[in-house]
């Protein structure tokens, strides 16, 4: 069983001086939920674009679903992996929701007669059926991102990269989209690669890749990453509440487990107080 994504010794150079991506290697299992974190400028978006073949690597190799990515087979690669960008407006191509979802289908040369049922089915999946004829200026950020997700799903891709897809949305929009991403991961076994700043999302993912100045500082489960004080402090990463609480309690001699779950933590703290 091949991996969804495999990256070996990847290097990319944007400016003359530094390597934006400096010898990175990692792999991503099919059906997993991987988050990529790191400060702004660490290379997160660059990796996303390299995986989609939107940027040309300097050296190293990238395999998408077992196929090596190179200039000749970009169309093939784009049949396997898709991306939802950060700015809801700048990736809305069609003049209406319907036209936007159709755009990808047009490029993949789907038969015209088959397009309508596909468009309507995915619009329904993201709850945008009543907005099919709407123009982008009449939609909220969250709604536009839902359309972006529908457009990618409609192309029948199994690997989707989310490049800070919720950072420009209001809390309602963020919630909608996070819920939707979780749904398509759980129900459709889509391999999710999410570049994010949302520490709670990271806590719920299967794997975390931590980038620092173009290098892979660390890769592992959320628990492993959050317990690595050096990484967390050096990179000034946002620390989940439960971890801050746990560390603070430890300084007072109170021991609680490594749980990342708010409910469990509350339970343990209360047990401690009530001496149960």
């Amino acid at each position, binding site marked *: 069983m091949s991996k969804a994504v495999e990256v070996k010794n990847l290097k990319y150079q944007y400016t003359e001086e530094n390597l934006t991506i400096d010898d990175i290697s990692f792999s991503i299992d099919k059906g997993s939920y991987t988050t990529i974190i790191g400060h702004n400028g660490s290379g997160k978006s660059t990796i996303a*674009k390299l995986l*989609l073949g*939107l940027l040309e690597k300097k050296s190293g190799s990238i395999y998408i679903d077992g196929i090596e990515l190179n200039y000749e087979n970009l*169309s093939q690669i*784009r*049949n396997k992996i*898709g*991306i939802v*960008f950060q*700015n809801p*407006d*700048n*990736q*809305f*191509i*069609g*003049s209406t929701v319907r*036209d936007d979802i*159709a*755009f*990808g*289908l*047009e*490029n*993949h*040369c*789907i*038969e*015209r007669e088959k*397009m309508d049922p596909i468009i309507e089915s995915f619009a329904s999946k993201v709850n945008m059926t009543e907005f099919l004829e709407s*123009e*982008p*200026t009449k939609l909220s950020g969250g709604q536009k991102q839902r359309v972006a997700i529908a*457009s*990618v799903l409609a*192309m029948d891709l199994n690997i989707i990269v989310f490049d800070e897809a919720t950072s420009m949305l209001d809390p309602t929009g963020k919630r909608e989209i996070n819920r939707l991403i979780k749904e398509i991961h759980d129900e459709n076994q889509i391999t999710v690669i999410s570049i994010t700043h949302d520490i709670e999302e990271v806590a719920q993912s299967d794997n975390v890749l931590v980038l620092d100045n173009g290098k892979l500082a660390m890769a592992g489960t959320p628990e492993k990453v959050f317990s690595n004080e050096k990484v967390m402090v050096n990179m000034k990463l946002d620390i989940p509440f439960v971890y801050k609480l746990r560390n603070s309690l430890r300084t007072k001699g109170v021991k609680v487990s490594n749980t990342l779950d708010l409910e469990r933590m509350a339970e343990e703290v209360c047990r401690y107080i009530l001496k149960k």
Partner: protein
Amino acid sequence: MNNITLGKYIPLNSFVHKLDPRTKIIAMMILLIAIFIPAGFVGYGIIGIFLLISLISSKLSFSFVWKSFKPSLFMLVFLLIINMFIIKTGDVWLTIGSFNLYSGAVIQTVYIVLRLLLMIVITTMLTATTKPLDLTMGLEDLLSPLAKLNVPTHDIAMMISLALRFIPTLLEEAQRILKAQASRGVDMESGSFKEKIQAILSLIVPLFVSSFQKADDLADAMEARGYVVGAKRVRYKKLKFTFFDFITLVSVSGLLVGLILLKVL
């Protein structure tokens, strides 16, 4: 901004609105040719009646069409005055002192006015009853034979559709930038020439930067969804000729032939 009526699409549900955009483009071309056939006032009268019927069936209001015509009025009056002094053919109709007003001058000017009026009515009807995107599609289809000569008709049509899609977005952005700069003390109305230039720059530069960023992001999004310039694609939207398109084209052609005959006979 909201008072520009020339070129604006009016969403209604009329016979003309429902015609195929290709039909309307072709009909417009034929009618424009017809206008230039010198068949005298009778000819213009026939065209006028035809257009009147079309206008009624398009459900557009007369005041709307008049608004489209109004900007040209000033120029026409100016033209009339010039012609009165220059054209000296025909009989003399009026004499004021040493100035003679010739019939030729009056008739020529009236012809020009009539032609202009008819042209404006025709083009306004086209743009008012056809969504810009449908117009683009119609043009793309009609020009597709040119693709065989390596003219990138599809790419041009794609560019036009994208521009149309982003016009409202860019307008909103311009509004925002204006407000932001007003908050920094920019006053578009007063100030020295140099200050006014700075004020305009403070609007245009951010708008340009933003547009380039959008174009960049858009290109990435399009590529990621499999778009390749020049590659084969299937077009989702389809234009279909109906019986009504057929009769429209037949009647317009009939009109042209009729006018030619009128002129010849």
